[in-house]
């Protein structure tokens, strides 16, 4: 009977739910309710924050990281290809040229759109 085989799984799920949900429910039921202004601070303890807490990063970091990944991946592909260049032949060579061409178009695009300039 399939049902009995799966009963274990079901019991496992129910048990997991009970443990996880039980902890939340229990704490909700038994915790003392003392509502104060400090309760709504992000951190109840520690020093007060000074100035805006939302620090903005420059997107250029992100763009550089992306471009780096592109060339990283390129290298990963180029390396084994270069090692086995003799045996792979012309077809692989053309494929690699196409691959490089697509990457170069991407780089060209990024360059032209100003992704390489630190503003």
């Amino acid at each position, binding site marked *: 009977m399939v049902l009995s085989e799966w009963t274990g*799984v079901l019991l496992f799920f129910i048990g997991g739910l009970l443990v996880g949900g039980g902890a939340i429910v229990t704490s909700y039921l038994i915790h003392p309710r003392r509502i104060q202004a400090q309760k709504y601070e992000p951190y109840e303890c520690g020093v007060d924050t000074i100035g805006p807490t939302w620090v903005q990063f420059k997107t250029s970091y992100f763009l550089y990281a992306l471009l780096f990944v592109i060339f990283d991946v390129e290298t990963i592909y180029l390396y084994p290809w270069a090692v086995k260049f003799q045996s792979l032949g012309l*077809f692989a060579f053309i494929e690699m040229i196409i691959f490089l061409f*697509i990457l170069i*178009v991407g780089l*060209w*695009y990024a360059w*032209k759109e100003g992704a390489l300039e630190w503003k």
Partner: protein
Amino acid sequence: MNVDLSLLAPEIALAVLGLGILVLGLLIPKGSRHGLGWVTALGLLGVLGLTIAGWDNQGTLYEGIFIVDRYAIFFKITFLTAAFLVTLGCMRYVDEMGDQSEYYSMMLFATLGMMVLASAGDFMTLYLGLELMTIAFIVLVCYRRTETRSVEAGIKYVLLAGMSSAVLLYGLSLVYGVTGSVTIYEVGRAVTTEPVPALILGVAMLVAGLGFKISAVPFHMWTPDVYEGAPTPVTSFLAVGSKAASFAILLRVFIAALPGLWAHWTMLVAILAAVTIIVGNLVAIPQTNIKRLLAYSSIAQAGYILVGLVTASEAGIKGVMFYAFLYVFATIGAFTVVTYFYNVTGSDEIKDYAGLSQRSPLMAAVMVISMLSMAGIPPLAGFVGKFYLFKTIVDNYLWLAFIGLIMSMVSVYYYLRVALVMYRDEPVDHTPISLSGPVALTLIITMMATLVLGIYPGPLSEVVNTAAHSFFLP
């Protein structure tokens, strides 16, 4: 290695087109990129022609990881038609957003992803196509990056799509772990009727991951927010293309790779379809925003299409393909009206559609015909489509057919509400809306297609028959 590149010709052409548009965008100064829409549209027509020309050219590549059968070709035709119509209808919208070249090339890459998805013969290709499509869509969804709604939709889509991808990958790896293969047809041979729990878990993950893409309930939560926030042409492409592609691969995976487990997942799919139909239609009722309304209606439509999977039969596949194809026209018709209406009035609220029939009879007519087709009113295409879908299940799943029928009636209610606003109410602003050429062309094409496919479905039905038949060939 001997590769028949002619099988890949449409994909290659589309990739070249996408890159070409990107390069063109770099070469042409910012102010004069209006022509790119036409280049894209014509290019898509070319690729469409290429795909149709390859109708008799079937085969597999790389030991079965890329399958080109008529099933895949038919879906590719569907995607390309959709992409063409969307492009034709959205030019003005895109011109107002700016950055045309990126927009069009992203759309082309998304289409490329769909085409890869339709041809995917193993899990890796599947994932590749899916991510190519999804990532392109993520960019498109938050394209109006100065608008918080669009950005919010983008963030939601990134995170949730990422989540669903993770689940899907998990499912794929579980299936691989049990069967020892990633090629779909080999998995199909390995999967037996007596499953191990890990495989069942994997199937569940697959259902969830792909269910997310087709926005089946309960994996639909992203749909209304993303549909509402995304630029309208993107929404329509998302509703049509992404959904059709996900259905293409869903059918491929479940009917070709997991037929052994049919007895296990058929009831699940039936229940999912029922829930999706019910929730989609019910929640559409109180909506006041036309895009949200269409989003929920598209959820309901996904439910209808899912019905075709329940029996895992050739007839079901046929129903799905037929519906996916006609759904392209109904949805794009409706969304093109929404797009253009937004361009003119800047509003997506249903109440602002008051008196549209007086301001632009064509727009109102297309809206009504599209919606009635989605509701499945004869003699429109949607009726025939639903007929083919539900015909497959009336024997064993009468309750599901019953739910589909009742909910179709419910859907008429909210569709007609829009019609009522457009036809009965007096417009606040009486200025007629004049349509631009490409938009009018899109509207007329979609309307004629919806009418013709409804009145005379014979030829398409024959085409779909042969396409569905090819599914079982390899």
